[in-house]
Every structure is written in structure tokens, then in C-alpha cells.
């Protein structure tokens, strides 16, 4: 049982992440009065890409070849170090908030390098935009996790997640403020509206897609999968750190299956929210995005300031 849970903790994020992408696409299609592809289409896409031959630019170095493996491993590593379905911690030594933030930064680093490596005009600008946004998002990201860390008195994510909802109403305002700040970072880091359009290949605006433009075959599959993983990681952090409803350390089969079901419901809610945002608003102009990210940082700073005065 323990071994099963151990592997479940490691593999859950990569297993469900394509489903989330499929669900978001399906909802968006329905909102646009289209039938849309099946929700399991992303799995089929990954399968197809994994079995294709690859074409790599002559200008690419080993950085380009190794980057998809690093980026994908980073998301698996982070995925296993966040509380998914239980507060029972298999990895107490690595599930620290700052470790998560900086390991994700490692993925971003290689993603941006791979965008620059092929020497095309698109990749470079994609990297430049991505790094600009992620540099500015870092403050809000660390601070939103810090708000919860200060409330819980620890920076370990599993320990943070074991608190009751809003600390029984005591810290309603700081937590909501921190969550709003976190949500802005979520949109930026996962390349969603209003920061980036995951469905576009318009050279003037694309960010994430521009960096992975030269990839094909299995490396493209890894990159796509990694970005789906990252989306799920941020969803899970969003609800299990800020609103850890029903999250317990109990490991019996009953609670476990209930918690897994609950996890899927929570993911579905986030998918609906993202799909609604993407269907109802336009992408922002690039130079308006820093305002949003600074707003996220300030919201979090206010949230931390409120903790002690409450």
C-alpha cells in the first residue's frame, strides 16, 4: 500500500495533466458553439508525437537536445513534492516552498536557453518575454507561499497544507488576498490569458509557443507534457495550499479514494475558471503585464502585513 501511494504521488501529476488540457479545450470549444475534440485528445497527441521521427536544427547544441528532459523532469520532481491527495509526506526533505520555486526556475532556465539555442528570430523573443515575465512573477510567487508559510509557521508545503480552512475563519482576508496574488502568478507562469495565448502561433505575441517552435517528435511531446504538468502543479498549489478542503493525513482506502475524487473535482473547477477567463477576455498588451504582476506582489505584501495585525 505504501509503495503504491509512493508511486501514485510521483506519477499522479503527469497522468492527469493531459486530461486537464483536454477538459479546458473542450469547455472553450463548447463556449464557442463548437463540438470540440474529445477530452482525451491530448493523450492521443502525446502518443502520436512520441512515435514520430524528429527534425532538429543544425544550429542546435546539446542544450537544445537535453532541455526537454530537464524541463519535464523538473515538473515531475515538483509534482511529487506538493500535497496532492493527502498531507502524508513521502518527501519531507525536498517539499520546501523555496525548493519548489527555484526548481521550477531551473525548468524555466532551460526552456529559455532552448529557445535561444536554435538562433531563430522567434525563439529568442519568446525567451526574452518569458524571462521578463517570470522574473517579475517570482516576487509574487514567493510571497504568496510565504503568506501561508508564516501562518503555518513552516515553509514545508505538506505541513502548510494541513491547516483547517481559513484557520477556522480567523485569517479569511489574508488568505483570500494571497490567493488572488497567487492566481495572477498562476496565469503568468502557465502561459494563460491575459499573459499568453496557448492556442496561438502569432509571432508578434506568442511566448511559450515561440520557445518550443523548433521542437518536434518526442522532444515536443515532452515540452507539451511538461507545460501541462506545470498547469496542474499550479492548480494543486492553488487549492491545496490556500483551501485544503478535505485534505487529511489518513491513509485508509476510503478516505484515499474520496480524496482522489475530490482532487479531480477541484481540478475541474480550476479548468472551468481558466476556460471562462480565456473565453471572456483578451490578451493584454505586453507592457501592461508588469502592472498585473506588481499588483500580485503588493497584494501578497498586504496579506503578510495583515497577518500580524489580525
Amino acid at each position: 500500500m505504501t509503495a503504491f501511494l509512493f508511486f501514485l504521488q510521483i506519477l499522479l501529476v503527469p497522468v492527469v495533466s493531459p486530461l486537464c488540457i483536454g477538459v479546458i479545450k473542450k469547455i472553450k470549444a463548447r463556449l464557442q458553439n463548437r463540438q470540440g475534440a474529445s477530452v482525451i485528445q491530448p493523450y492521443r497527441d502525446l502518443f502520436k508525437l512520441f512515435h514520430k521521427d524528429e527534425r532538429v536544427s543544425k544550429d542546435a547544441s546539446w542544450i537544445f537536445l537535453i532541455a526537454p528532459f530537464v524541463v519535464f523532469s523538473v515538473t515531475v520532481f515538483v509534482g511529487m513534492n506538493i500535497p496532492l491527495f493527502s498531507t502524508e509526506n513521502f518527501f519531507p526533505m525536498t517539499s520546501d516552498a523555496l525548493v519548489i520555486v527555484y526548481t521550477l526556475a531551473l525548468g524555466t532556465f532551460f526552456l529559455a536557453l532552448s529557445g535561444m539555442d536554435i538562433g531563430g528570430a522567434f525563439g529568442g523573443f519568446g525567451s526574452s518575454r518569458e524571462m521578463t515575465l517570470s522574473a517579475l512573477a517570482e516576487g509574487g510567487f514567493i510571497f504568496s507561499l510565504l503568506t501561508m508559510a508564516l501562518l503555518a509557521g513552516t515553509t514545508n508545503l505538506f505541513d502548510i497544507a494541513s491547516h483547517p480552512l481559513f484557520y477556522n475563519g480567523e485569517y479569511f482576508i489574508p488568505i483570500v488576498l494571497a490567493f488572488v496574488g497567487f492566481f495572477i502568478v498562476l496565469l503568468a507562469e502557465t502561459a494563460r490569458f491575459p499573459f499568453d495565448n496557448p492556442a496561438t502561433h502569432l509571432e508578434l505575441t506568442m511566448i511559450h509557443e515561440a520557445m518550443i517552435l523548433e521542437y518536434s517528435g518526442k522532444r515536443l511531446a515532452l515540452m507539451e507534457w511538461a507545460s501541462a504538468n506545470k498547469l496542474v502543479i499550479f492548480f494543486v498549489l492553488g487549492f491545496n495550499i490556500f483551501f485544503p478542503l478535505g485534505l487529511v493525513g489518513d491513509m485508509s482506502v476510503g478516505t484515499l479514494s474520496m480524496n482522489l475524487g475530490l482532487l479531480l473535482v477541484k481540478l475541474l473547477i480550476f479548468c472551468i475558471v481558466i476556460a471562462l477567463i480565456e473565453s471572456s477576455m483578451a490578451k493584454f498588451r505586453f507592457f501592461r503585464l508588469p502592472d498585473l504582476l506588481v499588483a500580485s506582489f503588493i497584494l501578497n505584501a498586504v496579506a503578510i502585513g495583515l497577518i500580524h495585525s489580525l
Partner: protein
Amino acid sequence: MIVELFVLGAFGSLVFHKRDVWANTWGSIFALLGTLGGIIFSFFTLIQGQMLSFLLGQTSFTFLQFSLHIDMLSAFFLLAISLIGFFCSLYGFGYVKHYYGKYDIGVLGFLYNILLGSLFLVVTSSNALFFLIAWEMMSISSYFLVVYDRHDEKNVKAGSLYLIMTYVGTAFIIAFFLLAYKYTGSFQFDAIKSQHTLIPEIFQSVMFLCALVGFGTKAGIIPFHIWLPAAHPAAPSHVSAMMSGVMIKTGIYMMVRLFLDVLAPVPLWWGEVVLIIGMVSSLLGVLYALTEHDIKRLLAYHSIENIGIILLGIGSSIIFSALDMKSLALLALVAGLFHTINHAIFKSLLFLGAGSVIDQMHTKNMEEYGGLIRYMPQTAFFFLIGSMAISALPPFNGFFSEWLTFQSLFQGIQNLSFSLEWLFLLAAGSLAFTGGLALTCFVKAFAGIFLARPRSEEVTHTKESVLSMRGAMGGLAFLAIFFGIFSGLITEIITFVGQNLSLFSVTDASVSVGHSQTLRIQESFAHVSAPIMFFFFGSIFVSVLFIIRFIINRRQTISFGETWDCGTPLKPRMEITTTGFARSIILVFKNVLKPSIQQTVKYHDAESRYIPKSRTVTMSVGNIYLTYFYRPLQKVIDEASLRSKIIQGGNINIYISYILIALFVSLFFVL
């Protein structure tokens, strides 16, 4: 002792200055032997924990004693200096070859050995006057090293700026020691320490400001940093690595020595000032680094940033100790010192890597690099490790010291009252943004230098650097990983160093080290283990690689083709440049950086202005320190000098009457 080796090396290479190869070999061997001795000596001092103090010589003046005192703090800095010095000397052995026939190698070996020797003396001397002599030797030898490449006018100018700034700094340091002497009656550090309570409070504050300006100038804090991005790039690369890696750390050493040992306990506001300076330096340092396209200037600005991060640790340590929260103070001090040695390692690694590239490319302009990873694969690999370490990416050493710094700031937010809480919150915020911006800057630097297609013809003629240079970089890269994975062990040693200061002699640090190198903050606030992190990440990486390569993808092939070019053949001009890469982030911070853009268009026919002959775009960043601080200061000084010129009549009688008046005045005071 060890210093004698350097002296021998210095004069030996001067003797051989007619024979380039001999001079280089002689100088390098003695530098290597000396630093190796330093490593062994300081390592054993740290392990055994014994203190050493002895007299090198006594002069007829009672206040000048050539006395050395090596406690754990000195030994720690000795270790940093000799580690970096060892690899820089190894690198220099190969690097100096391209100066053969151009400049006098003997002089270089002389100055380099003097610099090493004086660095050793600076961190070990326990007499203020002896310290000042060593400090001046360090400053002057480094000045001559900065102007060593004297055929470039810019280097000479940079050297002059450095010399002026360093003398301003030294003036403040002298003022500091004179004030200390006036009230304690001694130039010995331990005597000042035992009697510093005699100093009136107002003069203690003056002394603090003097020390801050004096040692801050050497450390490169903003706004006294202006010499640093000019002087570090001018020196030969292994000397830049020494200067950026360890010489500026002597400023940090003296701040720790004075504020947490000699003058301790110090008032709260000293710590607040240091913390604020740390915030400003780290954030502005990295922003200016982003604007640079000269590789060595970029690295120099990162030194300012990292000094800022170190000061965040030191500053919070001073605040905690002023509030009598000793164990938190020790945690913050450990964070600061850990980052000090880490920065020494990765910054010298990066400077050496940059040196190899410059050696091959003959230019420091990053816009002319590109694609070097194919021609210099090993240098590229080492530079990548340095970039990841300085960007605080796990599991390299930079991550763990920044993690400790973050944790000490979090402890401040958690435990302090309202206004201090906000100060620590701002500090944590600046550290968070600094981390993100540093990552951006090193994507720019690494990708600009090594990735994509060559942007100039010169790149295709480059080759990998010689063995001693690669060996030095490889050694430092190994240290960057080693200090990351064994961060627990290093933290334990540094905690020991901190407890050796009398302020923390009975203090348990808030950071403890558990099994498998686990760093633990308080009882359960946070913990992280480098080897476990490395193991899990490594095994995921290997299994992903294995599954994809051998299970899913057995039959697939990779073919190589052109990058997608929209139908037009790609030219080097179509790639993004390093300036273009950073442009958007510079525009985001345009209120701070004050970027300017100038376009000049030359036309074939100036009258009609239809067909442009050439277009020039000049982009620059405003130097707000020059405009708003140094220029006005210069004006004030000029004005004051003009006014005081009146008393210089040029008539000898007037001067004699001045002497008479001065005599009367002093007699009046004496009687």
C-alpha cells in the same frame, strides 16, 4: 611563513622579468605553493578550532606592531582567499601566455604575488596600523594590475577612478581608526574591543558611518560602486576573478569583524542601514547587469548584486543581535558568510570562463559572440555551471546560501514588531526579485555567448583554451557542486566560525544540520537536504531519459535541417541580440534605469533625405550616481577650493604670518 612564499615569488619573478616564460613559471609556482599552504593551514585551523596569534616584528613605535591574530573568522576568509587564489594562479599560468612579448610578465607576477600576500595579511592582522599598511598594499598592487594592460586608454582611466575611490575609502577608514585610538588609546583590535564602551555614542555613530563608507567602497555597495564596473573588467581575467571573488570580500570581512565582533553589541539602526544598503545594492546591481553587453562589466555588476545579498544576511544578523535574538543572529551571519564563499567560487569561475572567451575572441562585446559552445565546449559547460550557481538554481551552492538568507529574513518577518517586520518583508521581496532578474541575466549571458549561430567571423577561429585554464575552471565548477551537495557540512563549519566570535560564544544557531546533510531552521520551520534532492531529481531525470530512449523511442531517428526561416535564409543579424533580449525588462524598469535611445541617420543626399546611407542607434543607460551624487559633490568641492584660494596670496610674507597665527592658536590651546 606563507606570506614569505609570496614575497619570494614576487621578487623572483621580478628578477626574471627579462624572460617571460621563467617569470611566469616562477611567479605562478610560488603563488600556487603559497595558496596551497593557505588552504591546508586554514582548513586545519577551522577543523581544530584553535586560535593563533603571534608577532611578526616589533617596531620602536609602541602603536605599530606587526601582530597577527588568526581566529576562526580569519581562517574562514583565509580559506576563501587561498581556494580562489589557488585556482586563479593555476588559470593565470596559462592565461598570461598571451601577454608574452607585449608586456613585462615579471611585473605581473610581482604584483599578483604581492596582492595575494597582502590579502592574507588584511584578514589576519590584528593591529590597525599594520592592517592599514596591508590594506594599502592590496589597493596599490590591484591598481597596478588594473592598469596592467596599459595600451588601452580606457583601462588607465578606469584605474585612476579606482585609485581615487579607493583613497577616499581609505581616508574614511583612517578616520575610523583614529577615532577609535582617541578614545581607547590603542590600535590593537582586542584593546579596542575591550574598551569600545568608552567611546561616546555620537562618535560611535560617526565611526560606523566612516567604516560603512570606507569598507563599503571596497565592497562595492551602491552608491560607492562606480569604480567596480570600470576597474574589474580592465584587469587581466584571473586578476578580475581575484578582485571580484575575494578582494571585495575584505570589505565584508571588516564589516563582520567590526560590527559583530570588535564594536559589538551595536545599536539597532546600524543593522537597519546595512540591510537597506543590501536591498538597494542587490536590486540595482542586477538591474544594471541586465543593461550591459560587455561580459566583464556584466559580471562586475553581479558582484555588486551579490555583495547586496551578503549584506542582507549580515544586516539582519546585526539587527537580531541588537535585539538580543542571538540564535537568529547567528543564522543570518551563517547565511551571509556562506554566500560570501559561494560567491567567491562561482564569480571567479564565471570571470575565468569569460577570460577564456575574451582570450579567443579579442573583444569583450557580447554582441559579437554566439555559438561558442561548438568551439569551446568545456568552457561552455563550466560557464553553464557557474551561471546556474549564481542564479541560485538547485542543487548548486548558490541556492543553499540564498535559501538560508531567505529563511533568516522570514524569521525576521515572523518574530519582529511592526516596522521591522516591514523592513524584512521588503528585504525578502528584493531578494525574490533579485533571484528572478539574475536568472534572466544569465539566460542572456549564457545564450548570448555560447548558443545560437556566430554573430561574427571571429567565432569560427576560436579554439578551446589550454589545459591549466580548463583545469582551474573545472576545479571551481566542482567546488560549486560540492559546496551545494555538502551544504550541511559547510553550514556546520560556518556555524562553528560564528560561535567563535565572542558575541555568539554560547549561542546555538537557529540552523542545525541533521543526517544526510539536512539543513534545518528552528525545530520545524523548514528543512532541506541537498543529497536527497539531488538523488530524486537525478533518478527522475535518468528514468525519463531511459524510458523515452529505450522503451518508447527505439526506432525513431533524428534528422538535421535548417532552423525555420520563413523562406529567407537566416543571417546572424536576424538572431536576437543580448541588448534586444534585455530590452523589454529595461523598459519595465525605465524609471530606475533611465534608458536613452539616439538614432542618427546619414543620407546619401542630405537635401532630399530619401535614401539613407547608414543608420546608427545608440542605446545607453543614464548614470544617476554621476549626475545626482558625484557631479554635485565635485561642484561643491570645486566651489570650496575656489573660495579658499583667496588665502593663497603668493606672497611669502603672508605665508609666514599664517605660520605665526597657527603657532599662536596652537599655543593658546596647549597653555
